[in-house]
């Protein structure tokens, strides 16, 4: 864990300590959506690193984004103010990610990315979710992606686990000792 991650983790821990009860499942879902949005639109928060933009403007924009747009509870407003005051508002995406991580840890949830070479049905996705829940003894949440480089098969990936059964992986497994 690098310095920024550690700092974000501490802000997230402080937030959860004070406002942890406000984070319910729906809020958690909103946080994940927001984190996903911020990760895909990194330039959206670029203005936070510009010193000539006044603090109250930064607070207003962040509040607008978090509370108005993504419907997060008002308990996020003190966090936004605190971050802007500390000139660390650019950490907001990482802090939200850490809050989601802490929530998942607290509620025994593990987030996976399900990847398949061909499109899966809802039933198949749920079957994979059940399989993981059964194996790990945790609640599973997932995002779903299609990746043709798998050739054929599936990959279930989280921060701590990977389960893959694909032709690409088998080909890689066969070719690796030959090329070593």
């Amino acid at each position: 864990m690098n310095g920024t991650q550690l700092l974000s983790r501490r802000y997230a821990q402080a937030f959860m300590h004070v406002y942890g009860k406000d984070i319910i499942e729906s809020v958690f879902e909103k946080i994940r959506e927001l984190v996903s949005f911020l990760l895909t639109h990194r330039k959206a928060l670029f203005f936070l690193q510009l010193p000539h933009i006044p603090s109250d403007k930064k607070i207003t924009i962040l509040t607008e984004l978090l509370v108005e747009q993504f419907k997060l509870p008002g308990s996020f407003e003190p966090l936004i103010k605190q971050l802007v005051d500390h000139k660390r508002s650019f950490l907001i995406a990482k802090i939200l990610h850490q809050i989601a991580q802490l929530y998942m840890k607290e509620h025994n949830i593990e987030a996976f990315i399900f990847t398949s070479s061909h499109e899966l049905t809802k039933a198949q996705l749920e079957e994979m979710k059940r399989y993981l829940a059964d194996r790990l003894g945790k609640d599973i949440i997932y995002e779903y992606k299609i990746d043709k480089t798998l050739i054929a098969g599936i990959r279930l990936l989280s921060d701590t686990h990977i389960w893959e059964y694909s032709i690409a992986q088998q080909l890689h497994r066969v070719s690796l000792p030959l090329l070593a």
Partner: protein
Amino acid sequence: MLITASVVAFIFRIINFGALVGLTIFLAKKYLMPTLNNAMYEHESAIEQIEQHTQDLQSHAQQLDEQFKKQEHLTNELIRKIHAWKSQFEAQKVKREQLHQELIESAHKKIATQQQMIKQMYVQNKVLPIAIDHAQKTLEQQFSSEDTGVNYIADVILGMKRAEK
């Protein structure tokens, strides 16, 4: 008178004889004795010299004998050393030949290993990537049809379902 004359004559004859003998002895002592003494001395010294020479010769002969024995011993020693050196040389020669042979064998093995490695590297760097790429393309083609890929995934999920039970 006659008797007296004859006695005197006899006495004189005896004195004369004595004088003659004394003169002879005197002359012999004076002239002959030194010569004889000299000759005797020379003879004695010659005998001594000869004896000395004989002793010297004997001593020399003894020395020569000793030297001969010593030389014989040295020769024997040298012959023994030559034999030992020869056998050592032979042993070393055999050893050197063995070593030479081993070196040749080692060089051959090394060359064979290097050739093997070059072949392996060629296979690894050229042939295998092409083969893997070809395999990948073939598999992609094989699973490109929707049915094959979907069926494969369905089988995997079925496996998961069975494992769950």
